């Protein structure tokens, strides 16, 4: 402190003699003034240094008065690393989330809702440009600048994560600048960058994708490898936290993780030395392994798209991780939380993947003689001394083993059937039945639920399980498993056991009329159920129990084939309406889905129980309940009386069932018709295709022919016209010759005409001469014929 005081003195000048020393606020005010207005860089730098030294003690004052000045420094003096460093440090202190010991007025804001750091952060972030400036300083290699800039951003994201995420997202290359810090050789910077990235990648899919795009997985795995994987310190934990964030609900990144072969890169995390006794399980190592398991689960958890899950499951198997995890399962000395989480992870890796499920079945425990791992796990499940989480996780793995695994379901039931001679070898089925009958409430519940998973969507096994008989004691006749369940149900005083048994029965009887018949034939079972539904007790969970009884009765109604005369579908409905009352029945039924654990169990396949009392409802059962609740309600609800005048419920259902039969017949015939029509349609379709092809062929030929004709006609046209034109030419020539001849002829004609005229003249001369001679002859008395007579007799003569 003494150093600062002398330092201050040199900056501010010695306090005036006699006057009281300046208060913190006054000092800060003078310093801020200098930072703002001094013309010399050295002065501003000194003032900034002083502000920094006061920024913890007089945090309120520096924040309130100096924020603008410090930001101005970041903007105007960015070339000078030293002053920038002081300004960033000061801002860092002002906006820190923690409360400093030396702070002057820690009580000022302790009463207020938001902390001082948060309030200053809000003010600072109103100017998004400042964030850009700070991000820019990350590019400075100078430790004195880069580190405080990084620390400032960490404070900001701590106080206002959402806002900073949005700002960094739109800052040009904002995320890239942060990612580059991972390559910094100075560990402090790299490690702080990891912490900042952990906050930054939380819950923002866009940032997650950019960070992944910037080779985050490569860089993080490089860091983890450097640190020694699971044996590395908290840095490995930070890296895994980022990987976890990047994959959480982010399908794009999950795909990238798988495609980039990063699943293979996580496998060294699970490599245990062959002699597992020697492993030291430090708390950090436990955390690192747990985090790695969480990363694996992110890739295969039930909520993911099926395509991603199944391809990741394959890769996890092929990369040897499943094998390594099964090794951890069977190793000794593994801490229980690691064991539990490993079981959960293995469960999700095999869930719904037949190849992995088959592999899981072959895993053997290194005991003498070797036993299947699955048996060893179930032993822990029905062992009351094991911790709850472990027992629940075994149930989860078993449930995942049976999920969509008809072969596994059949094998389990097979171990219980009389034909399998070996008794007492401790098969899976026997363990479960033993647990069911153990009388320990949690064991009964877990075993009942595990058994019910062998029946999910598998009608064949429901019928097979009816054949299971139990020897009750020497000399006593064997009872069936179903009867035994009814006995436990009626004799047990424990809610948890009863709930377990009821869920098993509901799963068993649903869609299985044979099982319903067996239950109806079990003495006192239906009276017990109806009494439960009608009971008026309101103890804890008692309502759930009554609701489940109502549901089981409903199943007995829906899937009743009327083969037990005393409990036909109709008589059960009557029982409900007369003995219990429909309203009461429906109320009780509704209790199930209203239960606080129902929605939780329905949402996620894994049982999540805070304590043993919370182990009540199973995921698959809740799915069944949701699917059938409506049918149960419809089956027991009063039918519309208007349709059938005065009909009782009995006749109503009778007519209804006949109607139903009619409709079924109708549907069947219609179905046949549809099939027939489909077939015809198919036929027509193919015919149509054939004709289409035919048409196409024809049209092709047509167009071909058309082309040909076009071609031919074109050729023909050219031939004809040439002939014609020669003709025309010829014709054009002939008139000319004609004309010439014409004129020739005309000339000739003229000549002839002239000749004729001359001759005519000559003739006229001759004529007059003749007439003269005639007159002379007459005078001479000669008788002469007239001309006319002569003309008539001799016409030829002119």
């Amino acid at each position: 402190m003494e150093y600062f005081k002398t330092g201050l003195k040199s900056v501010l000048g010695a306090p005036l003699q006699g006057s009281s020393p300046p208060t913190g606020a006054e000092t800060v005010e003078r310093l801020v003034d200098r930072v703002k207005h001094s013309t010399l860089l050295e002065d501003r730098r000194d003032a900034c240094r002083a502000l920094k030294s006061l920024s913890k003690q007089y945090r309120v004052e520096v924040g309130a008065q100096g924020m603008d000045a410090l930001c101005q420094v970041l903007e105007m003096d960015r070339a000078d690393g030293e002053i920038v460093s002081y300004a960033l440090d000061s801002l860092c202190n002002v906006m820190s989330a923690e409360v400093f010991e030396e702070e002057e007025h820690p009580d000022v804001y302790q009463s207020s809702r938001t902390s001082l750091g948060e309030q200053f952060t809000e003010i600072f972030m109103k100017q998004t440009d400042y964030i850009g400036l700070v991000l820019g300083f990350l590019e400075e290699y100078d430790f004195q600048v880069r580190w405080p800039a990084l620390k400032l951003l960490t404070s900001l994201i701590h106080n206002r994560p959402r806002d900073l995420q949005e700002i960094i997202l739109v800052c040009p290359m904002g995320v890239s600048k942060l990612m580059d810090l991972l390559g910094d050789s100075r560990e402090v910077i790299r490690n702080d960058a990891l912490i900042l990235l952990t906050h930054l990648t939380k819950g923002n899919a866009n940032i997650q994708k950019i960070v992944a795009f910037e080779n985050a997985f490569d860089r993080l795995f490089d860091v983890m490898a450097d640190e020694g994987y699971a044996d590395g310190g908290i840095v490995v934990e930070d890296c895994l936290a980022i990987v976890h964030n990047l994959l959480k609900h982010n399908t794009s990144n999950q795909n990238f993780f798988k495609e980039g072969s990063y699943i293979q890169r996580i496998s060294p995390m699970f490599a245990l030395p062959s002699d597992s006794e020697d492993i030291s399980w430090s708390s950090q190592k436990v955390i690192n392994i747990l985090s790695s398991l969480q990363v694996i689960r992110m890739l295969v958890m039930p909520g993911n798209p099926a395509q991603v899950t199944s391809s990741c499951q394959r890769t996890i198997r092929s990369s040897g991780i499943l094998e390594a995890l099964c090794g951890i399962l069977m190793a000794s000395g593994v801490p229980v939380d690691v064991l539990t989480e490993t079981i959960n992870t293995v469960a999700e890796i095999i869930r719904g993947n037949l190849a992995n499920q088959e592999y899981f079945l072959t895993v053997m425990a290194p005991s003498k003689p070797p036993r299947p791992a699955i048996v060893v796990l179930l032993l822990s499940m029905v062992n009351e001394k094991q911790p709850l989480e472990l027992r629940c996780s075994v149930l989860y793995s078993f449930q995942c083993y049976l999920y969509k695994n008809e072969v596994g379901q059949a094998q389990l039931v097979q171990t219980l059937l009389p034909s399998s001679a070996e008794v007492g070898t401790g098969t899976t089925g026997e363990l479960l039945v033993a647990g069911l009958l153990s009388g320990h409430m949690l064991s009964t519940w877990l075993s009942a639920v595990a058994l019910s998973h062998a029946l999910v969507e598998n009608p064949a096994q429901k019928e097979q399980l009816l054949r299971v008989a139990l020897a009750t004691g020497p000399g006593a006749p064997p009872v069936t498993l179903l009867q035994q369940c009814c006995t436990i149900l009626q004799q047990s005083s424990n809610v948890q056991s009863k709930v377990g048994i009821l869920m098993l029965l509901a799963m068993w009887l649903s869609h299985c009329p044979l099982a319903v018949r067996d239950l109806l034939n079990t003495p006192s079972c239906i009276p017990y159920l109806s009494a439960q539904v009608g009971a008026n007790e309101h103890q804890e969970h008692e309502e759930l129990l009554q609701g489940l009884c109502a549901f089981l009765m409903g199943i007995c109604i829906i899937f009743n084939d009327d083969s037990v005369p005393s409990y036909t579908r109709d008589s059960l409905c009557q029982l409900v309406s007369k003995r219990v009352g429909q309203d009461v029945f429906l109320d009780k039924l509704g209790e199930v889905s209203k239960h606080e654990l129902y929605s939780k169990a329905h949402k996620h396949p894994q049982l999540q129980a805070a304590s043993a009392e919370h182990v009540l409802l199973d995921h698959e059962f809740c799915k069944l309940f949701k699917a059938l609740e409506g049918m149960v309600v419809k089956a027991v609800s009063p039918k519309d009386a208007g349709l059938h005048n005065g009909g009782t419920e009995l006749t109503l259902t009778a007519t209804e069932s006949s109607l139903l039969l009619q409709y079924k017949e109708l549907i069947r015939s219609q179905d046949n018709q549809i099939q027939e029509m489909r077939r015809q349609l198919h036929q027509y379709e193919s015919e149509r295709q054939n004709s289409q092809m035919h048409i196409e062929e024809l049209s092709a030929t047509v167009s071909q022919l058309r082309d040909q004709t076009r071609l031919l006609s074109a050729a023909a046209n050219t031939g004809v016209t040439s002939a014609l034109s020669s003709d025309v030419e010829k014709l054009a020539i002939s008139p000319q010759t004609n004309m010439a001849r014409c004129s020739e002829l005309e000339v000739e004609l003229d000549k002839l005409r002239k000749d004729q005229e001359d001759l005519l003249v000559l003739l006229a001369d001759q004529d007059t001469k003749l007439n003269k001679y005639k007159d002379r002859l007459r005078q001479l008395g000669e008788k002469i014929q007239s001309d006319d007579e002569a003309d008539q007799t001799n016409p030829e003569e002119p």
Partner: protein
Amino acid sequence: MSYAYLFKYIIIGDTGVGKSCLLLQFTDKRFQPVHDLTIGVEFGARMITIDGKQIKLQIWDTAGQEAFRSITRSYYRGAAGALLVYDITRRETFNHLTTWLEDARQHSNSNMVIMLIGNKSDLETRREVKKEEGEAFAHEHGLIFMETSAKTAANVEEAFINTAKEIYEKIQEGVFDINNEANGIKIGPQHSPTNASLPSSGQGAGQGGGCC
């Protein structure tokens, strides 16, 4: 599984030009006529062979809407190739190419190979942008050009592979600094000696069946 090189691509362009469909056609060989808007960025990967070498393509499909533009900018720096897509039936998507190109040039490394793609070539009747215009634009800005149809798969393979060829050639010419991962290029693990121990660890057979 092993590859000689890994190239990172991004697909950019206006919203609705068919970026996601191109990616889906390339990686899954299928066409999805109804697709929701891409929110943020989606991812796909495929192996191709160039010059006898296995090359892994990792492709990031971006959102075209203006609101996501600043997010898209974050992807330029780390990409070795970009497919800049427009829709031949919508002139405005062609008009916006200049903006996209400016953005890309400003934020990417200068060697990034850009392939200009006129998509929806199957919709010839609704064409608004002539092929020659696309060619001219590409020529003017030094891009490779192709018309594709994500629907019929025409030229889709070629578009991705030709881009990879161009990058590959640039590597051969020594233009790219392949040791800088910020360029969007990675050398495959088979080039490092440690890989030899991988298949011998007893999962070789499983690995062969598991991939792809």
